[in-house]
């Protein structure tokens, strides 16, 4: 009996070959959406949505690694004398996957649908400066955006993860599972129950000679060890975003190639609610910030895969950042500030965290150690991960959070304006609001940069967020594969040049 069992196992391993799907390049994502995953750009909420939507759709304008606008479906743009009307000229000869040509009407529909309250897209808030009546198709290949006020960086601001171009008339109901776009790959097998998603090369793609890969097989593996095993065994070709531990494990392994993003992207932060005791006293907030050894957080929490932050959402590597220097740790100053605030014997605070995001718990523990030296006793409260963003996040005075990389104007507004929906620190500062809003209408880049820096100075000194580090995203390619570089923003993925020498192209 035992012999026959062994025999059949051997026979199986010898005869069974991979199915036809193995011809596809196998791409592995890390954050899964399960059945909630969608092909509708208006609801591009999870990274899993971004993995697949970037395969089938294009944007009007995309962002490079420095978050500067680059042409995509719009090949050129210009602004009127008064700065209120932007004209975008579309690429010629672009077709959707169903053969229909791309026209200005598709672009108009895509943006109007996004800002329509009836759609309910979370992206609407980012496009508050747009007026539906101001989005006009001048002719088949020209679209204009006319705004009430001057929007100095409009091409940049209309490029976010929600603004992919869908067909005129496409609704959320259809787009949930059917992604007809102009993108480099065409949706083929889409079976969420069997966890199978296959996308074929778009033979009529408007960028000549691209994409290179014949097809892409997308799957999400949430277990880090399983991802490592998969790429080491050679059965997958690309992990689009890998955590610091994976990078440490795979560094120096000849079977794989580790490719970091061109720049640091998102950040992980500790949020103090400025309307709650003891954080309502700015001196306490400053003391809490002063105890952080920022380089140490990069080295321990991110295992070196990132850069230190200075409590503003712009990475110090960005020319628009407050400073390129790292704010030094100053325990004596923290003690003095606390004494001044009426806490000569230190304070005790609860810090809420959960395994709800990468390194959340580790950051809390490292902060606890650093704060202890200044007489700040931090109780790390580890919460259940699955309900963290409903029950704890933004609902407790002191908690861990993280944000993806964003362009400068978006990053400053999205979570820090007094009326921002995700104002994590419940922070209200009129001077800051004014600078950020005025910078939007400032057409002189030098003046705008100055305003952005002033706003950051206010935020770093007075705001409720400790932003100790920015993380650098890292992709892992199997040896023999090439042509994929992760973008600092996890929601932007470009598979056009992805290729593997030993797979069918």
């Amino acid at each position: 009996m035992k012999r026959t069992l062994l025999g059949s196992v051997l026979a199986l391993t010898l005869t069974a070959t991979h199915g036809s799907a193995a011809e596809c390049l196998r791409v592995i994502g890390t954050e899964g959406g399960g059945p909630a995953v969608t092909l509708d750009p208006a609801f591009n909420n999870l990274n899993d949505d971004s993995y697949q939507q970037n395969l089938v759709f294009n944007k009007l304008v995309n962002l490079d690694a420095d978050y500067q606008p680059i042409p995509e479906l719009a090949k050129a743009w210009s602004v009127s004398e008064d700065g209120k009307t932007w004209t975008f000229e579309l690429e010629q000869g672009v077709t959707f996957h169903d053969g229909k040509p791309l026209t200005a009407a598709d672009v108009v529909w895509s943006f109007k649908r996004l800002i329509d309250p009836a759609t309910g897209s979370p992206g609407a808030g980012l496009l508050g400066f747009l007026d539906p009546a101001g989005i006009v198709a001048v002719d088949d290949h020209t679209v204009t955006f006319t705004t009430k006020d001057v929007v100095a960086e409009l091409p940049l601001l209309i490029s976010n993860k929600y603004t992919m171009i869908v067909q005129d008339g496409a609704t959320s109901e259809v787009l949930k599972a059917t992604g007809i776009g102009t993108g480099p790959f065409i949706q083929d097998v889409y079976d969420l129950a069997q966890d199978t998603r296959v996308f074929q090369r778009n033979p009529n793609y408007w960028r000549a000679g691209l994409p290179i890969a014949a097809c892409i097989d997308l799957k999400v593996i949430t277990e880090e060890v399983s991802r490592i095993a998969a790429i080491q065994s050679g059965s997958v070709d690309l992990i689009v975003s890998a955590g610091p531990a994976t990078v440490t494990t795979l560094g120096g392994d000849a079977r794989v190639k580790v490719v970091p993003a061109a720049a640091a992207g998102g950040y992980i932060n500790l949020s103090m609610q400025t309307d709650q005791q003891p954080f309502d006293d700015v001196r306490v907030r400053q003391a809490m910030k002063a105890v952080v050894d920022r380089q140490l957080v990069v080295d321990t929490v991110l295992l070196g895969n990132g850069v230190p932050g200075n409590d503003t959402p712009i990475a110090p590597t960005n020319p628009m950042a407050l400073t390129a220097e790292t704010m030094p740790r100053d325990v004596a100053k923290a003690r003095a500030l606390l004494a001044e605030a009426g806490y000569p014997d230190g304070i005790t605070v609860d810090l809420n965290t959960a395994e709800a995001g990468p390194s959340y718990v580790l950051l809390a523990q490292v902060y606890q150690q650093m704060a202890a030296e200044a007489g700040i006793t931090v109780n790390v409260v580890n919460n259940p991960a699955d309900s963290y963003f409903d029950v704890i996040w933004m609902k407790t005075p002191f908690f861990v959070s993280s944000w993806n990389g964003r362009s400068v104007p978006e990053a400053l507004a999205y979570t820090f304006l007094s009326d921002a929906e995700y104002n994590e620190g419940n922070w209200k500062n009129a001077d800051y609001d004014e600078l950020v809003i005025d910078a939007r209408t400032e057409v002189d880049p030098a003046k705008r940069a100055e305003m952005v820096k002033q706003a950051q100075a206010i935020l770093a000194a007075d705001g409720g967020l400790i932003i100790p580090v920015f993380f650098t995203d890292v992709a892992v390619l199997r040896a023999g594969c090439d042509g994929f570089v992760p973008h600092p923003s996890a929601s932007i993925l470009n598979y056009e040049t992805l290729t593997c020498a030993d797979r069918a192209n």
Partner: protein
Amino acid sequence: MSFLHLILTRIAASTLTLVLVSMIIFGAVQGLPGDAAARILGREASETAKDRLRQEMNLDAPLVRRYLDWAGGVLQGDLGKSFSGQKPVTEQLLPRLKNTLALAGIALLLYVPLSILPAMMQARHPDRRLDRTLSALTVLILSTPEFLFATLLLFGLAVWLPLFPPIVQLSSGMGWGAWLHALFLPSLTLAILMATYGTRLLRESLIEILQSDHVLLAELKGLSESRILWRHVLPNALIPWMNATALNVAFMIGGVVVVEKVFGFPGFGSMLVDALQMRDLPVISAGVLVAATLFVLANLAADLGALLVNPRLRVKS
């Protein structure tokens, strides 16, 4: 009459258990902290979108009313509509359940020889080197966390010795050979995890029966050693093993979650975990109900199996 009566009593008790379990499941699932709308739409969703989804999901009707609606639907085979997938739960659940039952089926087939053969080798010559080695091995596997054990097998048989694919990729067009090949490693993992407990239990009962009078009589009669072992000892020792197997099926419902996660297997367990994270209440309720039904059925089967194998249990006391 009494045998039939016994069977009917067990079936009635099982049905009652399931009804009670369904109430507990429904109540507990509704009591989970967290907001399905916020989970599905993501942390950056607008309030209006969340409100609309909550209305669609009918989360504001009274609890009893919702239970009766749900239970009525379940009896007609309608498990409701998934919040996150916007599709009937059955469409989501059935393919996953099919995959997991296939996985569990192969695992059970492997489990039978994997638990019986080592136990028989051990019981034949207790306390010899082979027995001690196998005992040490079973204790080692028993005390290894499931996740670690699955990971070790993954690296051993998919990376170091690349016999099997590390990630299970199923497609509708795949042949039987490729299908079995894909499922083998997770099934083997599950089978070994279950077999350790069965082996230890079976070894004990085999040794006990080998020392009993009727075995001595058989030996004196001159029956061959293998005939005694297979015909006279094993059937008697199998009763506690069958109960252990029923418990193992219960373990499998939990263990399968770990194995599915490690091997990226599109199964019932990982579906349930995803649904829990999404607060997808209809999928959670349906999934737990299915798991509970499997558990009750496994126990019922063990009870009935014991009645069949052991005539003594059928006698009215």
